[in-house]
């Protein structure tokens, strides 16, 4: 439940601002000059704010579309990400956002039209080579769809460009808007998973594995291209058993023919982010585990990381062809 909405003065009359505010008639509206006055201020406590986050409606001025980090991709050479939203309604303890941002409030950039212009420019820069756009990097792409209508706006845009792909990455079941339209052939709806037992302790507020799978099954029936993301892989002593069980559950319901891509990646945090997160959650077992600095990132001990990646890759190969498998390699 959103109790407070901060609105930048400049976009208080923007149609998207009005549309979003109309969903929350009882909410406290507070105007500000620039969203950073709230979002970037020092001495905020992310953990506390997460218990009662506010919405911040803002205008983005530059850097609408950014290069995706090295190693991030699903087969393309031109990889970009764009973030209409900062932060996520879920509270996954392994999420790097809690170490990156000072505030847990959700920022929504309402000037979708400027993002769209920047996306089209990127696509037009290279007609020969496919461009891949990732939308779920700084937020969950679909979790707040009833409020943002993000997919409603951007999918018709991508439908016009056969040399561009868009990935919506999510743990949510907010697929109603997708089921109302014809599937977009160059769109991948990618669902993230960790084994149920791990999800129960680390992914607070997310739909259960079964509910996510139900959403995937519905999309599959409507011929949407799907993705599976096991990123980050979470270690514990019996991880083999847990991931085997998860893969078995997923592939008993999801047809390989509908899968565009399957990717996995290891748990990884830039040092400063991890320091911030541990300060917020010193009581979390995940951060007391076997982590070490590696290629400038904190990750599991090398031997653990390698054997997990190898094991999960081999396990997945029993279900999927090699050409749809991708490993997100942070050291790339």
């Amino acid at each position, binding site marked *: 439940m959103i*109790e*407070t909405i*901060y609105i930048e003065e400049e976009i208080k009359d923007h149609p998207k601002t009005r549309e979003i505010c109309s969903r929350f008639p009882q909410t*406290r509206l*507070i105007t*500000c*000059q620039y969203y950073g*006055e*709230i979002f970037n*201020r*020092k*001495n*905020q*406590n992310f*953990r*506390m*704010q997460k*218990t*009662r986050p*506010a919405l911040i409606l803002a205008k983005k001025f530059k850097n609408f579309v950014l290069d995706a980090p090295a190693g991030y991709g699903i087969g393309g050479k031109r990889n970009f990400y764009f973030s209409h939203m900062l932060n996520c309604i879920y509270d996954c303890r392994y999420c790097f956002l809690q170490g990156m941002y000072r505030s847990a409030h959700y920022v929504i950039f309402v000037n979708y039209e400027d993002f769209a212009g920047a996306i089209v420019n990127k696509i037009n820069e290279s007609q020969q080579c496919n461009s891949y756009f990732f939308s779920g990097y700084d937020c969950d792409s679909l979790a707040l769809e009833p409020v943002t209508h993000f997919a409603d706006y951007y999918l018709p845009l991508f439908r016009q460009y056969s040399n561009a792909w868009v990935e919506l990455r999510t743990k949510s079941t907010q697929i109603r808007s997708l089921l109302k339209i014809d599937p977009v052939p160059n769109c991948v709806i990618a669902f993230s998973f960790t084994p149920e*037992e*791990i999800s*129960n*302790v*680390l992914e607070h507020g997310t739909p259960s594995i079964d509910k996510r799978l139900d959403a995937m099954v519905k999309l599959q029936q409507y011929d949407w291209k799907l993705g599976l993301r096991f990123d980050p892989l*979470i*270690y*514990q*002593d*019996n991880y083999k058993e847990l991931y085997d069980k998860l893969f078995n559950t997923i592939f008993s319901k999801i047809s390989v023919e509908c899968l565009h891509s399957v990717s996995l990646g290891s748990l990884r945090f830039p040092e400063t982010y991890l320091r911030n997160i*541990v*300060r*917020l*959650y*010193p*009581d*979390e*077992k*995940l*951060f*007391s*585990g*076997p982590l070490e600095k590696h290629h400038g990132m904190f990750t599991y001990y090398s031997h653990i990381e390698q054997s997990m990646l190898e094991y999960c890759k081999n396990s997945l190969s029993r279900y999927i062809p090699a050409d749809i498998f991708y490993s997100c390699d942070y050291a790339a």
Partner: protein
Amino acid sequence: MIHLVTALQCEARPFIHYYHMKALANHGPFRIYESDEVRLIVCGIGKVAAAAATAYLHSAHVDEQNCAWLNIGIAGHAGKAVGEGSLAHKITDAGNGESWYPSLVLHAPCPTDALITVDRAEYDFSAPALYDMEASGFYATAIRFTPSEIIHCYKVISDNLLQPAKITSEHIVEQLIGNHINTVNEIITQSNRLSCQLQTIESTPEDLDRFTKLWRFTGYEKNRLRLLLKRLAVLLPDENLWNESLERSRTGKEVLTRLQQRIDNLPVRLI
């Protein structure tokens, strides 16, 4: 512990009485009152006085981390009725235009409003906001040492366009503020709860002192020791760390190695 800041003695009086606070004998430049859970400072009028008193009270209790802060006082407003109370959700310094946004993690037990801090008493109330003379100085100072989630300003309307400030007496101010004791008490209770949560999260491992008394650690090693002890407290919450092998350690470095080994040998289970 929560720190209350009021500009006037008459604004402080209802709280001194309600919380059974005692005046400190050697209070220095400000009058300070204290009970077990509440401390109050009377700062005088204006944002500079509020900033000075806030800094003074903090530095006098600098060892107490994450104390909550609440500025309470009277304010003016164009149309709101005299006697209404509000929690500030935005504080603007009229002098330089800077704004702060107290993070509303607590459940506000009252309406919230924008608050503008002015240098001289305001009679026009041109913006739809509360007007006071202390909040920006108080907030800008308190935010330097406390998270915004536990710093708040609560104001009671003492004057408006129909009832200007000139006719407000000390006795009326005391009565106006006193009528809001229950609301303020609710804010204090919630703020104290959040403050306790923060203290628990940021607490130092119990055994740290014992280790540093027995062995010598460099600054870097001490920091590593703190992290290792915190990890062990999470992984082995009910276990005594002390055993013969640890106590046989000759140097701080050896202690760190043994603690690290202890962690590495534990099974990794999140569930």
